[in-house]
């Protein structure tokens, strides 16, 4: 327990949000990448977030103490990145170089509107974590001036 752990917590939030921003950028960049088979087509990627519990970081507190598994928590981590199961878009474009025998082309299952909303949400969350870090910094600087005139 210290002000320093707020830096870790806000830092983990910033890492997670920037990863979310990264996948969003990748999804939007690949929104129009056509291919001729369903296997090769790009699928929308989404990060999965999970809360970190303090007891995992600090094993000495684990076990017997009351409510130890309910510690104050230590930020957020990215469990992994999953690909969306939504259906791919099949478009009839016989003139497309990547068209298959029936003249169809497969486009990724990226919903650009959804990705834009996700982008706004993650950049706001990122800003919020920066604010938290700034506050923690000024609180810490204040404690260093204790006892000074």
């Amino acid at each position, binding site marked *: *327990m*210290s*002000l320093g*752990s*707020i830096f870790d*917590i*806000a830092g*983990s*939030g910033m890492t*997670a*949000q920037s990863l*979310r921003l990264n996948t969003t950028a990748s999804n939007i960049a690949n929104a129009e990448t056509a291919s001729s088979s369903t296997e090769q087509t790009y699928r929308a990627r989404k990060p999965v*977030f*999970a*809360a970190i519990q303090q007891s995992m970081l600090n094993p*000495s507190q684990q*076990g*017997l*103490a*009351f*409510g130890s598994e*309910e*510690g*104050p*928590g*230590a*930020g*957020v981590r990215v469990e992994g990145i999953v690909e969306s199961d939504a259906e791919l878009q099949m478009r009839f474009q016989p003139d497309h170089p990547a068209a298959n025998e029936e003249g169809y082309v497969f486009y990724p299952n990226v919903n650009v509107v959804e990705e834009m909303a996700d982008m706004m*949400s*993650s950049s706001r*969350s990122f800003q*919020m*974590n920066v*604010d*938290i870090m700034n*506050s*923690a910094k*000024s*609180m810490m600087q*204040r*404690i260093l*001036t*204790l*006892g000074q*005139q």
Partner: protein
Amino acid sequence: MAISLDKALGIHQHALEGRVKRAEVLANNLANADTPGYKARDIDFQAMMEKAQEGMSGFGMTRTHESHMDTSPMGQDSELMYRVPNQPSVDGNTVDTQQEQTRFMRNAMDYQASFQFLNGKVTGIKKALSGQ
């Protein structure tokens, strides 16, 4: 007559510590604002202060084994509670970002106040020691 710095500083050092702890919990809520299923937490500051006062009045117990119940003022997280959400969300997350941020800011302000009190005490002691 023994001089106890702990007693001279009074409750303010515990208040400052409590404020830091609460800031940590609120920062964790905000970091997990997008985590599905995360439940927002907060500390009962008043209960914490009451515990600190009890500890100061001399009835505090000493832990002789690490698996003993921790009764120290800032010890266990027994004051950690879950928040009742205003509007439930689909993914089970109960963090209300605006509210949490407001609480965090207010907590930071209260921290400043506690710090001022503590700083006053410290400067007072310094003056007394230097005989001015």
